[in-house]
């Protein structure tokens, strides 16, 4: 089963606000750390990626997809999501209130997950609903719609 909804189940968190973008990545990735998909190194790698290459992981306004090259930090492919009530500022003043952490073992094994994600982002109506989800159940429902 390689469905986005399955991967995100129990990996979605909600917070009011965080202190910094670094914290937002750490907190968003915590579920993956707990279920053994990643090691703490991967969190550092993701933060360093932004410091080195810029906030390009902010893929559309409001949504960031923290990720990095897998240099022994990823054990199993996985995704987790963090929704913030108040947006956090990434470098270059980019506001983000949804973080979708992507941990990919290699560059190909997770492409159907990416494809589902793309289906959500490509459709403005779906994306609006996605941005306004208030609990895990709603998120999962919208994702299942596009799968």
């Amino acid at each position, binding site marked *: 089963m*390689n469905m986005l909804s399955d991967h995100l189940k129990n990996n979605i968190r909600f917070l009011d606000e965080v202190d910094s973008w670094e914290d937002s990545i750490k907190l968003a990735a915590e579920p993956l750390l707990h279920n053994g998909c990643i090691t703490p190194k991967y969190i550092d790698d993701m933060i360093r*990626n932004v410091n*080195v*290459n*810029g*906030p*390009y*992981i902010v*893929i*559309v*306004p409001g949504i960031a*997809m923290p*990720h*990095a*090259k*897998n240099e022994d930090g990823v054990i199993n492919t996985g995704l987790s999501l963090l929704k913030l009530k108040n947006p956090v500022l990434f470098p270059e003043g980019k506001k983000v209130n949804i973080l979708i952490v*992507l941990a*990919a073992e*290699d*560059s*190909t*094994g*997770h*492409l*159907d997950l*990416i*494809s589902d*994600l*793309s*289906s959500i*982002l*490509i459709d403005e109506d779906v994306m609006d609903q996605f941005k306004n989800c208030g609990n895990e159940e709603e998120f999962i429902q919208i994702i299942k719609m596009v799968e």
Partner: protein
Amino acid sequence: MNVTQVKTPSPRARIQAFGGFLTNMVLPNIGAFIAWGILTALFIPSGWIPNKELEAIVGPAITYLLPLLLASTGGRMVAGQRGAVMGAIGAIGLIVGSDIPMFLGAMIIGPLGGWVIKKFDKSIENKVPAGFEMIVNNFSIGILGFLLMILSYFFIGPVIESANNLVTSAIKALVSTGFLPLLSLINEPAKVLFLNNVIDQGIYYPLGMQETLEAGKSIYFTVASNPGPGLGLLLAFSFFGKKAAKRTAPGAIIIHFFGGIHELYFPYVLMKPLTLIGMILGGMSGITVFKIFDAGLVAGPSPGSIFSYLALTPKGNFLGIILGVLVAAGVSFIVTSIILKLDKKAVEDDDEVFTTSIEKSKLMKSEGKQISRESDEILTVNNISKISFACDAGAGSSALGATTFRKRLQKENITEIEVKHYRIEDVPADSDIIVVHKDLLERARLSHKNKTIITIDNYINDPNLAKLMNELKEE
């Protein structure tokens, strides 16, 4: 004039592009030809410093190295590194299947191999189950290459044999007419196809030796080995050729004319096949002069350098032989120069008929260039077949961008464009456009100096992507 108005490439652009394609396949490998030429001129038994051991390189280098390089370059131009591998695999079948160097064959099978793997890759795109990409990639080349290898092996033998038979019987027919200048019609094309040794040692030398027994010399030794036409051709390229062809031609002259390694000029003819006319007319005028002066050589000049010519010229024949070489060089120089100049001008001249606009002529030139992908000029969307999204890891944002863009293309029913994602440094050379986040532009520029790079700030809804999509739609 708006670039997007150019919908399908005109025949002119196609011919320009095809010429550019041949040139691009040959030019990167001229250095290898020169290396081989120097080696040969020095170490073969009739060379400057004969050396049995080093001579052993001569055969394998021209049989294997040079055709494989051409095939690999040809394949790469069609389908990147995977095409290069397929091209070389196909060429080895040809090479082993024939006993003459397979240059023309390599220049056909190389791009063909590239085309095959490109078509295959496109047909399975999006259909490979996740995790199987590597095995599919390797085995597709493996299996298709295996088939191509066998096909080219069995195909080439009969083709070469019939080409040889055709050439031999044509030459015999022409000899019996008694009008020897006509021989150039067969000699020159046959030489460029590397049948030179076949016709010289198989036909002309026996004829020549027979005649020498009676007359002490023979014109047959000169009909295909005259270094004059090649000299004229290379001089024309030195003066009127373009870019790298112009710069390499003088070096080739030394190895061809003094070293007697005619193979050095073959690539120049192969990249501009029209110049064969100059070679044929040059060869004809050379034979005519030899005939008028009743000149001949006492033995087969091998290699056909000006020095072996002079060494084998019998007393009293020097004027005729030297004139024959010079006249042949002069004629082929003049004709080839005209061809090269016309080729340069063709675009502008035609233009006057259609419109006086200079812009349009520029456009046409770049149109030709776009097809052969040697241009890094402003983005024209003609013939884009591969768009590569790139990011640091080649797994996250680039994959998301590529997937989304692919979906949009599908929605517009545009199916002939391949959209993939890579690490910046791994983007293959056959990509027509590279898309990166603006933060990563510098790094992308570093690895891909001459590529069209589009920068984005938003992987889903970026104005630059929307613009690209619109242009692709109009195409």
